[in-house]
């Protein structure tokens, strides 16, 4: 009963004391939230209008820098896009900056043919200039002419063939599954209820599912979380967050260590063929590359390199 006057009394007490660290923009200056809404609406309309124009205008893009053999010869070296982090294929030693791997050797063989020298000479005279590429950058780099060709574990697919030229395949890769030695997983029959981590943007999940089905394990309950990049995947495996790290064998090689092993190395599935990619416009170079790749495969050089670089 005595307290009835209290709730009203606090109103007149201390006001204007420091307001705790709020970081929102005050509505007063510049643009208000309501103003923002109407502005956004106007922008959306504008975007819709300009998109129709853009559609009409941007179909004929893409620069056609001189990528004929003559241009390369007068330049004095061949620009090749290669992987920098795939052991055995394209790998750059961070200490020396030197590239090694089968795809590096292929690039030197192509350069040798272009300049009419031997592969050893091409290597000695530095006739190839390497540019590191990733899955996301290799296409655009060929398109813009910054590299003459890309030889970087590039899988030949019908969709890609519509955008670029590909040589005949020089190597067939498949999917490998890495497990911790301590996990007790010894065969694909142990995969029921397990977690198989895969990389984003790869169809590894579909390939593993198809393999399980063909092995008679179509009823297995397996989850496939997708990770942004391979180092995170490797960390997820090492820390035990996933049971299996499934990825192209070319890539998996880099992540093999003492505590993990390849699950059923003899089981080959999810085959994919790597080819040398060139721009649609560079027909001469494409023909030459195809010839070199054909020779390397038939002469057994590729098989020898695969052994030399211990490709999985």
């Amino acid at each position, binding site marked *: 009963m005595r307290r*009835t006057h209290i709730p009203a009394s606090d109103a007149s007490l*201390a006001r204007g*004391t420091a307001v705790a660290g709020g970081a929102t923009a005050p509505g007063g200056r510049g643009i208000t939230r309501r103003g923002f809404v109407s502005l956004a609406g106007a922008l959306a309309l504008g975007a819709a209008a300009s998109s129709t124009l*853009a559609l009409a205008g941007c179909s004929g893009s893409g620069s056609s820098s001189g990528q004929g053999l003559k241009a390369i010869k007068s330049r004095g070296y061949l620009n090749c896009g290669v992987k920098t982090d795939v052991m055995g294929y394209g790998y750059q030693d961070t200490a020396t900056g030197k590239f090694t791997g089968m795809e590096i050797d292929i690039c030197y063989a192509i350069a040798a043919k272009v300049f009419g020298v031997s592969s050893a000479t091409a290597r000695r005279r530095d006739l190839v200039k390497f540019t590191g590429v990733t899955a996301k950058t290799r296409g655009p780099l060929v398109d813009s002419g910054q590299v003459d060709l890309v030889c970087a574990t590039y899988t030949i697919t019908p969709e890609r063939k519509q955008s670029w030229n590909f040589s005949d395949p020089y190597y067939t890769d498949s999917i490998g599954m890495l497990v911790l030695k301590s996990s007790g997983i010894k065969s694909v029959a142990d995969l029921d209820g397990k977690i198989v981590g895969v990389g984003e943007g790869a169809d590894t999940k579909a390939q593993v599912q198809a393999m399980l089905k063909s092995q008679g394990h179509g009823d297995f309950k397996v989850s496939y979380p997708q990770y942004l990049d391979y180092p*995170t995947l490797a960390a997820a495996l090492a820390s035990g967050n996933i049971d299996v790290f499934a990825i192209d064998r070319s890539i998996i090689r880099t992540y093999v260590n003492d505590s993990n092993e390849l699950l059923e190395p003899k089981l080959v599935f999810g085959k994919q063929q790597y080819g040398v990619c060139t721009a649609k416009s560079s027909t001469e170079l494409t023909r030459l590359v195809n010839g070199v790749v054909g020779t390397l495969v038939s002469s057994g050089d590729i098989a020898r390199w695969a052994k030399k670089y211990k490709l999985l």
Partner: protein
Amino acid sequence: MELFDPGRWAQTLSNSDLLWQGFFFTIQVSLAGLLVSLVMGTLLGVFSTTRSRVLRAIARVYVEFFQNTPIVVQVFFVYTAGPMLLQAITGASHVVRIAPFVLVVICVGLYHGAYVAEVIRTGIEAIPRGQMEATQSQGFTRVQGYRYVILPQTFRIILPPLANQALNLVKNTSVLALIAGGDLMYQADIIVADSGYLQGYIVCCAMYFLICFPLAMLVTWLEKRSKAPRKAKATHAVPAATADGEV
């Protein structure tokens, strides 16, 4: 330009059920994370205003640690080291996995708990000590003083920055994508990676906007309200008769 390519938009939008799935997952994570952060924040905020040196030190160390290290590192650390630590603690035969949902709720909750603690501390400190003394001189107990005088004012002060923290928390749940957590960012990233079309990111942004913009408007409204002069509430008139009984 590819950005306006209708075909790419159509393909992206055909995957929108995945994005909606991520959208609702993000909302769930945010709500749970907010709850954790409010509990942690209130606890530590009160700690840092008590007289106890030890409690104040605990609150200080906690707040400084979480405010001065990136949440991505914290999430990665818990993700990679957590299962092994749990194994060691529980003595299990196999590493003990933490579901991404739980992991991020805890990480985001603890991280924003530090900010919430600061908000609550400044909120409490904003009320002059004299007011508590005044309530006590009027015959209030300490609890009553908090209940009727201090806390109503504190709430008015802290609500805008709290809503602001909720907004940041929603955006920070996107670290889930790094550990394949199944949230909105994760789903968008998969769609973009699968198709190579960046439209997925635009839709993803729009969906985050859908959650955050109402929160931002709430912040603005709360700020406006906390600055407005407060009207006295209608109270029951004190019957004159009872005054007779008073000394």
